[in-house]
């Protein structure tokens, strides 16, 4: 009677089966984190073989780390992470297929919720690719408005990163402070675009709305105290010994690995490679704007954090220049409503807060894109957790993932 039952098997006699509330099925044992099918690939077989003293822990699709629905199966030895297998797809909405069945104009609305925090950076490459196919020239005022709103979006995204970074390390205050920042910028952008989150602001050939009084007054208020406010917020973290000592030397990536893992954005700039597509492959009006590219050498979590903080300061510079240099003119090019670009292919990439956002559009001459391929940086960076996490404690593993700043909407498309 008291023989040890194997893991997952439960005899029918242990639980009273006449209770109508209890409907057990013998095969449904304890929830197993491993997949209930034999491994299909080399890597799966390698991962799902347990060594001595190792076990699987499932960080399921719902977990408190607010990156979204990501499931990671961790293979741990005590508290150390030995290996991990991220399982994606819990937010896959089929955006590429939906774009193929929608107009060019409608596709822009599908691109927004990919990386819902940096929506404008998701719309921008799609819109740029359509403009390349149509040979449309965007008016300069529209370009400046695009840069202005997207740099505000970048600051919003980096403030949230700061909050989540601290939240994953256990600090509950900075997330509240960064949401204050984020709400202010969101209200600003709501005055400009009409929406707090999924802006749907860019159009083929320009933008949707011009500067208005409410936006400018909110922007002016905010800019006048932005620098000191950001310094205060950062003082909470940058001078915090626990924060710095935990993040220093954690998840170090060197330049060769970063290039092999196809990283872009702050993650690769933290390793020392100054790759920023606003300078490397200039688009829009960035050649006329003066800003630096912050780079660090260490390649650890602290470096990735500090690069993003420095980028906030550079974004403030860019916003300042945009406001001073804003030209007059139309905000949208004249285009017919029914767009039929000639058959062709176009690729457009922008530098967003997480890395390179790109769109590859194939047109077949009809009013619907033939293929709309969206390239998202979070998808690429999440592969790096497999390289960086092993060897650390579970708590540090979460910090590593937070420092790569993935957003699951973009990862899963």
């Amino acid at each position, binding site marked *: 009677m008291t023989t040890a039952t194997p893991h997952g098997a439960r005899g029918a006699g242990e639980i009273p089966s006449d209770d109508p509330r209890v409907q057990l099925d013998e095969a449904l044992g304890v929830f197993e984190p491993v997949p*209930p099918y034999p491994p299909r690939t080399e890597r799966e077989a390698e991962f799902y073989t347990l060594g001595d003293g190792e076990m699987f822990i499932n960080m399921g699709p719902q977990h408190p780390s607010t990156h979204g629905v990501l499931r990671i199966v961790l293979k741990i030895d005590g508290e150390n992470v030995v290996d991990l297998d991220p399982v994606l797809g819990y937010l896959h909405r089929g955006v590429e297929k939906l774009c193929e069945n929608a107009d060019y104009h409608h596709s822009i609305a599908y691109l927004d919720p990919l990386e819902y925090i940096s929506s404008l950076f998701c719309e921008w490459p799609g819109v740029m690719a359509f403009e390349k196919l149509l040979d449309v020239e965007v008016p300069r005022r529209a370009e400046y408005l695009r840069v202005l709103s997207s740099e505000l979006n970048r600051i919003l995204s980096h403030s949230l990163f700061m909050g989540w970074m601290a939240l994953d390390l256990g600090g509950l205050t900075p997330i509240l402070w960064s949401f204050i920042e984020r709400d202010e910028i969101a209200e600003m952008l709501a005055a400009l675009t009409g929406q707090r989150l*999924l802006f749907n602001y860019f159009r083929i050939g320009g933008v949707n709305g011009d500067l208005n009084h409410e936006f400018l007054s909110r922007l002016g208020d905010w800019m006048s105290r932005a620098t000191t406010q950001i310094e205060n917020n950062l003082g909470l973290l940058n001078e915090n010994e626990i924060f710095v000592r935990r993040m220093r030397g954690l998840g170090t990536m060197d330049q060769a690995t970063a290039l092999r893992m196809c990283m872009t954005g702050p993650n690769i700039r933290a390793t020392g490679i100054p790759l920023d597509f606003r300078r490397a492959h200039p688009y829009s009006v960035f050649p006329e704007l003066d800003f630096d590219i912050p780079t660090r050498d260490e390649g650890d979590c602290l470096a990735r954090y500090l690069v993003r903080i420095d980028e906030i300061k550079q974004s403030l510079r860019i916003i300042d220049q945009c406001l001073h240099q804003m030209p007059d003119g139309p905000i949208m090019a004249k285009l017919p409503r029914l767009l039929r670009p000639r058959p062709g292919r176009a690729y457009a990439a922008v530098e967003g807060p997480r890395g390179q956002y790109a769109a590859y559009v194939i047109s077949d001459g009809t009013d619907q894109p033939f293929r709309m391929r969206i390239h998202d940086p979070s998808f690429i960076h999440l592969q790096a957790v497999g390289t960086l996490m092993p060897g650390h404690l579970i708590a540090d593993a979460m910090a590593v993932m937070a420092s790569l700043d993935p957003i699951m909407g973009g990862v899963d498309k």
Partner: protein
Amino acid sequence: MKKGGGAGLGTGPDDATAIASDAPGNKPSALTIRQTAVAAPIVVTNTLWQSTDPNAYQGNLEPEVTHLREVEASGIARRDDARWSGALEVIPTKADYVLDLIRANSLWPLLSGLACCAMEMMSSATSRNDMDRWGMFPFRASPRQADVLIVAGTLTTKMAGPLVRLWEQMPEPKWCVAMGDCTCSGGRYKRSYATVEGIDRVMPVDVYVPGCPPRPEGLIYGMMKLQQIVKDRRGHWPDRAVGPTVPENV
């Protein structure tokens, strides 16, 4: 009795062809697409590799419940475990009234932010729009400790299984708030192959908060409506049913 369709096409729910297009045995007869054999999924037959535990991988059986179709078909979601009203169902007493007041004013949500609406949910929980004023600050990470499931974000077919499991793990009394267009009706992803058009297909919903995403004030309004529902003892409990509440022929 065969209805319609000269070639015996699937015309109704009783027809044998009424199975999902991705089911292994589905071969709709009228499909006139040229039969191209697509690349089959890579299947590594398990001859070289063995688990140390003979009960692992269910003895090489196929997965049981990994897709929404099986969740729905198995009827798990229709179970009604332990109705919360119990013996006091008929005449609510003062004690019940106080209990309802207590529950309404300390609804603890479960952290179930799936996508963009999660951002607005977090924003409604933080300083500027503070849900803590109504007692909803602690977003519990574990479903065992939560009262309200605020589903914020698109529900995909892959996530539907875990979400239903979360819902079932929540002890009664529990309520569900569908936040955002994607959870109310599928929203902008209504045509997609991988989303569930509205979470009321898999779980009973008490409050729908439309918007894409709804403003934090909108979510707070929805939560206040939920408080009214709790206090009035309305809601889904006595007759909870799974499935869209839209009638036929609509």
